[in-house]
């Protein structure tokens, strides 16, 4: 997708959604997972991913866990209870938004 503005706002939703499906993930894993799911359509840049993760963490939606992997430290992100709630409400919000946009872009022919 060439228009990155369109999905920039959805990045936090994507992160929250991925973390409800997978218990815990680290940054690189998230970039790879998004690439895999969207078959390269959404290319989340590293420069955007970490800021989004840190923002969600500061808002209390994510908590972190450190683990030693090989000879380095790895930071895993997990959803908090507040994060779980946030995920549900943001997905609902997004669905309503998509519906509205669809109504404008692709109006259903009325029966009347």
């Amino acid at each position, binding site marked *: 997708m060439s228009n990155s503005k369109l999905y920039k706002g959805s990045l936090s939703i994507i992160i929250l959604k991925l973390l409800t499906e997978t218990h815990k993930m680290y940054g*690189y894993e998230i970039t790879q997972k998004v690439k895999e799911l969207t078959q390269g359509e959404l290319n989340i840049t590293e420069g955007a991913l970490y*800021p989004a993760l840190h923002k969600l963490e500061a808002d209390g939606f994510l908590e972190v866990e450190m683990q030693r992997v090989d000879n380095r430290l790895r930071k895993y992100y997990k959803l908090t209870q507040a994060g779980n709630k946030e995920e549900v409400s943001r997905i609902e919000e997004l669905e309503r938004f998509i519906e509205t946009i669809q109504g404008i872009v692709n109006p259903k022919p009325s029966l009347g």
Partner: protein
Amino acid sequence: MKNLSAEQIERLYEFTRQHYVEYYDVQTELVDHLASAIEKHWQENPELEFEMLLQQEFKKFGIFGFGDVVEERQQAMQKRYFKLVKKEVFQFLKLLKVIIVAFLIWLLSFLLLQKEIGVLIIGGIVFAELIWMFYELIRLQKIQKQKKKEKGRIYLLEEILLKTGDVGSLGFMPFYWFWTIEKSFSYQYVAIFLGFLITFSFVLHYIVFKILLAKKEEILHSVYPEMKLEKV
């Protein structure tokens, strides 16, 4: 599978420092990211050179390099810091309440020990509070009746809240204590004890008449989720 050596990990830390990442927490996360990405390349082609892969992965961070990551991380941490400050301020205010209550107990006991003038002041305050409470009870009873009349229904907890859990009917207690042991005020321990009781009942009345009633709707909505479904 080919993994990064300890020296290569150290080189990655150095690389982040060279690109203006000063903080260890941010460095660590970026090092793991770069290392994971390089190892991914090695899975497909173990012959690829470390430094070349590092530059390639760094480019993916865009023209500002690690700048965006560091900047956002600073903002996020600043936010967390102010959350901590807020928490401590609330904690401190709790302490302030304790200090106010202790001061009230001391003040009342002190006044009670001042014979006529002190007793007169306390007696006046206690009496004034009694009058205020009667006024409040009558006002709340009116609200209760009006609510029943208007909506034709009232929730159990709502009624208890409006009746102040019958704590209001104990409102005359400070006055009663004051009346019965008036002659023993000169004893210090009696004065302190009475000062404590009067303060406690003032605090209790303040909670049931002011604080809980101000939060009435919020409390009722959390206890009765069905209220949301109610037709207005």
